[in-house]
């Protein structure tokens, strides 16, 4: 498995797209900036939803209302961060797959995804019971706590990638 990942990473690094991004002196910093803009939008708006789920903020608004307003922003930001992140990954794939901060970051992204799927697939079914509750039930607050923790740690790990060389 490890061998395979290495080989794929080496192949990605040899493509002309990878060489194009790596060879340009202004492209990488601009990709980083776009990545920051995207992830800032994700963490900021997801954070607002998470704080509502935890019962810490926007308690006089329904969970549905807060989610409906914030999630389109979060998904837009995620798409921006994903595409810019992918471009950065391609430029130096062998470095990233070996970077522990990057590996852990990907693991937490998967965890945040699973948390979201469980929340929207299962917990959300009973939303009529807690939609307007200032302090939602434990399962809901747990989902908010897991999500917020994941995204905060993801930001730290993302910054750490560049410091492990």
């Amino acid at each position, binding site marked *: 498995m490890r061998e395979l990942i290495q080989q794929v990473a080496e192949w990605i690094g040899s493509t002309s797209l990878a060489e194009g991004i790596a060879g340009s002196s202004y492209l990488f*910093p*601009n990709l*980083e*900036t776009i990545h*920051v*803009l995207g*992830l*800032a*939008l*994700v*963490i*900021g*708006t997801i*954070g*607002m939803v998470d704080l509502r789920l935890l019962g810490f*903020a*926007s308690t006089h608004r329904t969970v549905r*209302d807060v989610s*409906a*307003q*914030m999630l*389109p*922003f979060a998904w837009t930001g995620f798409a921006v961060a994903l595409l810019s992140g992918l471009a950065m990954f391609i430029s130096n794939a062998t470095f990233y797959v070996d970077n522990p901060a990057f590996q852990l970051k990907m693991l937490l992204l998967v965890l945040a995804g699973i948390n979201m799927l469980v929340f929207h697939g299962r917990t959300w079914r009973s939303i009529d019971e807690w939609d307007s509750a200032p302090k939602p039930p434990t399962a809901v607050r747990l989902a908010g706590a897991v999500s917020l923790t994941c995204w*905060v740690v993801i*930001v*730290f790990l*993302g*910054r*750490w990638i*560049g*410091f492990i060389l």
Partner: protein
Amino acid sequence: MSYQQFISWLDATALSTQFKMTAWVVPAFQSIHILAIGVVVAVAAVLSLRLLGLSARHVSIASLTERLLPPTWWALAVLLLSGAVLIIAEPTRALTNRFFFIKMICLVLLVPLARRFHRAVQSQPQRWNEVSIVSPAMRPVVVVAMLLVTAIIFCGRWIAYA
């Protein structure tokens, strides 16, 4: 004391030396800085699109502003403090950097703009509760604020490359 002397003095302080010797200080405070940027970017995006009438028209501008702007001022405090730590840790890198200066100019323009907007809403909450879309005259101001936020983030990242 000249500007160069000030940078040399800051560089030689015990605090700066301590920060330089502790490897996690810069990445940790950069991460905190980015988290606070997340608050600012999200609030700027949500509020701007609401003001332009492009999202959540049923939500009152006055209540949205009152909910979103106070935490943003706290985020600004976190940004200034974490930014100060980063300057102290690497004085020359920041204080002789043209992107740093452009960033500061944008910041000095953005903060009073946001303050004036916040005050305007606070002084006439009734009026801002009733409108579903702000006056066309307000739109350029919203666009300028969004551009300033974007420019600040671009300059912030480019400090590392200049």
